[in-house]
Every structure is written in C-alpha cells, then in structure tokens.
C-alpha cells in the first residue's frame, strides 16, 4: 500500500532547475534508497517533500491526497519526518531536551505512535547515558542517533533520511543502519538518501538512481547490478530509464 508518492516533481532554485519530473513512491514498511552523485538532486528531493521548496500540491501525495508545498510543521503533523543532512540538532540544548522538543510537538499536533523515550533508549542506549549532555559535545555518531531519535519521536509514517552515514566510522554506520529494520517493522516507510551504493543496496527494498534531476534507474535492490548502477550514476550510453 503506497503511503507517499511524487508525481512529476519539479523543483528549482531561482533560475536553476534541480529536479525534472521525478516519480518516486514508497509503501508502508518499505525502505527505498535514493542514490546519485553530488548535485543530482537527492537532498532537494527530500526538501521538496518536506515543504522546504516551493512545489505544486499534486506533485507530492500522501495516501493519495495532494500535499505538496504544505508548510514543514504541518508535514510533521501529517506524519512525515526528516533526519536532515548535517543532523541539525539544537545546539546548546541537552540530548533529552532535543528529543523532548519532538515529543512536545507530537503531543501538541496529536500524533501518536509506537515511539517513546524508553523505546528509543533501548534502540540507542547511549542516548540514555548522555541524556544531560549538550548535543554539541557528542560524537558524530551519537549526534546522528539524536537526530534519528528526534525524527522518530514525531511518530512518522514516512521517515526521510538524508545521508545519515556521512562522516561516520564504518562501525558506527553499521550501528545506525541496524536500527532501520526495527523502524520499518513499525510500518514506517523509509526513504534513505545514501552516497554509499553498497550500503544503499543492502538497506533497501528498491533503489532509485538520480542523475541531474532525473530518475535514471529504478528496480529491486537485490536485482540491480553494479554495471547498471554505474551507468545510471554517471550517465552516458549506459543510462537505463
């Protein structure tokens, strides 16, 4: 059952067009990976869904309802949450307070779901240990866990993850990706933007490859070959649409 879908999604920064009609969909409990080179439009795609770019209503649908361009806080209310690129934690606030902000708002917006602080502490035990530490004093991996936790406590139906492995040690990356199955088991749909193709393949059901604002490859993650990805990633004669 498709939860979120985009239809001919177009986005631009002034005169520069970043996305040229992107169609991507994700179903309940499914993980979809979005890969592509720098500047392919991956982050722009997530920002467009999240109401951070001007897009037409019918370009983004949640449960079939047009919701494109809805203000970001209202998107959270509708059940879409994002782990933004660069984590974007609230500096000067403790781990607990960062998480509490999301819980406060979920409460205010009337969002309920399976995520609680206790459950998050079971998923990432270090967050309990560091509860009172200000977030700028955490390691990169710990910060990423706070950022993921903050998004989960919004009780999302769709979770968007923007390069959550960026700048982290391989061991930490494994630890973070190990959390995805539990999130999916909840029925949450996940869209991950990932630079590491191998990681993207292993963590997702389906892959979409973006090149210069267009989808150049799509298919089941287990069926796609490295050659196909190489062609779609860099373009040229191998591009498969």
């Amino acid at each position: 059952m498709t939860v979120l879908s985009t239809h001919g999604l177009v986005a631009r920064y002034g005169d520069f067009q970043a996305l040229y009609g992107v169609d991507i969909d994700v179903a309940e409990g499914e993980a979809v990976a979005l890969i592509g080179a720098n500047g392919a439009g991956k982050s722009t795609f997530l920002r467009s869904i999240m109401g951070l770019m001007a897009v037409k209503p019918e370009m983004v649908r949640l449960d079939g309802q047009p919701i494109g361009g809805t203000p970001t806080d209202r998107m959270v209310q509708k059940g879409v949450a994002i782990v933004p690129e660069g984590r974007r934690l609230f500096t000067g606030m403790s781990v607990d307070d960062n998480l509490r902000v999301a819980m406060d708002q979920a409460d205010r917006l009337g969002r309920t779901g399976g995520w609680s602080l206790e459950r998050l502490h079971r998923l990432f035990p270090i967050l309990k240990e560091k509860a009172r530490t200000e977030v700028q004093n955490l390691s990169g991996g710990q910060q990423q866990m706070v950022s993921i936790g903050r998004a989960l406590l919004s009780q999302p139906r769709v979770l968007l993850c923007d390069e959550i492995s960026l700048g982290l040690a391989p061991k930490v990356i494994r630890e973070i990706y190990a959390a995805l199955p539990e999130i999916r088991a909840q029925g949450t749909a996940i869209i991950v933007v990932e630079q590491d193709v191998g990681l993207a393949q292993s963590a997702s059901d389906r892959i979409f490859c973006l090149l210069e604002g267009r989808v150049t490859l799509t298919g089941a993650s287990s069926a796609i070959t490295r050659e196909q990805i190489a062609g779609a990633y860099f373009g040229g004669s191998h591009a498969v649409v």
Partner: protein
Amino acid sequence: MQWFDALIQGILLGGMYAQYALGMALMFGVMRIVNVSHGDLVILLSLIGISLASNFGWGPFTVMVALVPLAIALGWLLQKVVLNKVVGDDPLPSLIATFGLSIALQNMMLQIWSANSRSLPGGGIESQSIQIGGIYVGLLPVLVLTFATALTWGLDLVLKRTRFGRSLRAASADVEAASMSGINARAVYASATAIAVGILGFAAVFQSLRSTVAPADGGAQLIYAFEAVIIGGMGSVWGAFIGSMVLGVSQAIGFRIDPGFGVLAGHLVFLLVLAIRPQGLFGKV
C-alpha cells in the same frame, strides 16, 4: 561608604534597565530582531497607564494589572501584523520596520498626548525610603529590583522547563530544524514578542512612577536596554540582567565622580566591553 552607597544605588538603577533589557534579549535571542521601537513601546504603555490612572482614578498597581495584559496583546499583534513579515536570515528588514514603527509611534503619541511630560501618581510610594544597614534606599527602586529579579527568574524558568521554552530555544538554535520537528515558528515568535512587550507593561508603570515621561523619551530607554543586552551577552536572559546591573553601577559610580559624568560612564563601560569582549560577559562565541 560613599562608594558602597553608589554600588547599591547602581544595582537598584540596574533593576529598571533589566526590565527593558529582558524583552530585548528575548527577541534578539530567538528571532535575531533588534527592536528599535522597544523604548517607544515603554513610553506608549506609560502614557496609556497615566491616562488610565487619571481617568479612572486607579492606583499604580491597578494600572499594572490592566497594562500587562494590554502589553501582551500589543506584542502579539506587533509580531503577527508586522514582524512575522520581515523576520528572517537578513536582520535588515526587521531593523528598518521597527525603526519606521518607532518614528510612527512617536508621532502618534505626540498627536494624542502632546509633548508635555507626565508621570503616574504613586500615592506616596515613590518618595518612601527604608534604611538598610546605615544607608537609605528608596522603596520604589527596591520594588523595581524585586520585580526585575522575579521576571528574570521566571523567564529563565519558562525557557528551561516548559514546552513553550523548549520550542523557543529550538527555534532560536535552528529555525528550519525546529519546523522539521513540528514547531510553528511564527506562532512561537508571536508568543515571544508577546512576552517581551508584556514585560514592558511592568517597566512602563515603574518608569512613569520614578520619573516623567514624554513621547520623545523612547530613544534613551532603547539605548540603555541595548547597552545592557550587549554588555551581558546577546540573547542570554541572566546575561541581560547582569548587564543591566553593570550599566546601572557604572552610571551610579560615574555620578559620584561628577554629576555630569554618570550617563557617559555607562556608555564608556559599554564601549569597553564591546572592545574587549564583543560577545558580552555571558555571551557564547
């Protein structure tokens, strides 16, 4: 003893400045808005308070009870109608908007109340004094400092402990990330300005009790609030409080050195802090 007396008088004077500075620190801290009309809002509220007192025969604390909710409503409206349209990464639009508002407010007040100086009759509390350990202090300045301390403490507590306070701090740290967590930044901003101007409701009563007010007086109040916030460190509530004390004490000591030197001494300390520690005494780099 003379210098100890100056220190005490300076701290009491700082209590008045703290009541201006708190709201300014809050607005700057959360929205990066420097509200140029801050002083004019104090004067506007003072004049409204004086008119209420003379028309209904109210005492100063009855006026305060009426004025604070009015100030809260005024702040909320100011944010909704004007500031939410100009707030953003660029500080210039809000600076220009509040500068324009400042001029408009001054002219409006001149039209309604004329250029005459007025004050709020306090029924005697403005001239009472109490003796503490060999020095005499005015009852009114002590009340002002008490209110200033309570307001600072209360605001700090709200920021640290409440849902609203967390939203404010989150929006202050990263407004886009705050919206990604479901925070409606504009609603939070409206509440922040409502609180900032609401505090001026208290300040207006005390200001018009301790001296006279006239429509053109706003600029001086703005400067003191601004200096206190800079000395203490932009955006920190207790920083603004301590900054106000430093400013008050500098002025009081300056007055003891030479009666004409007091205000200038405050400005010099402000410039000194700006030169040596531009982030303020309690500011983070």
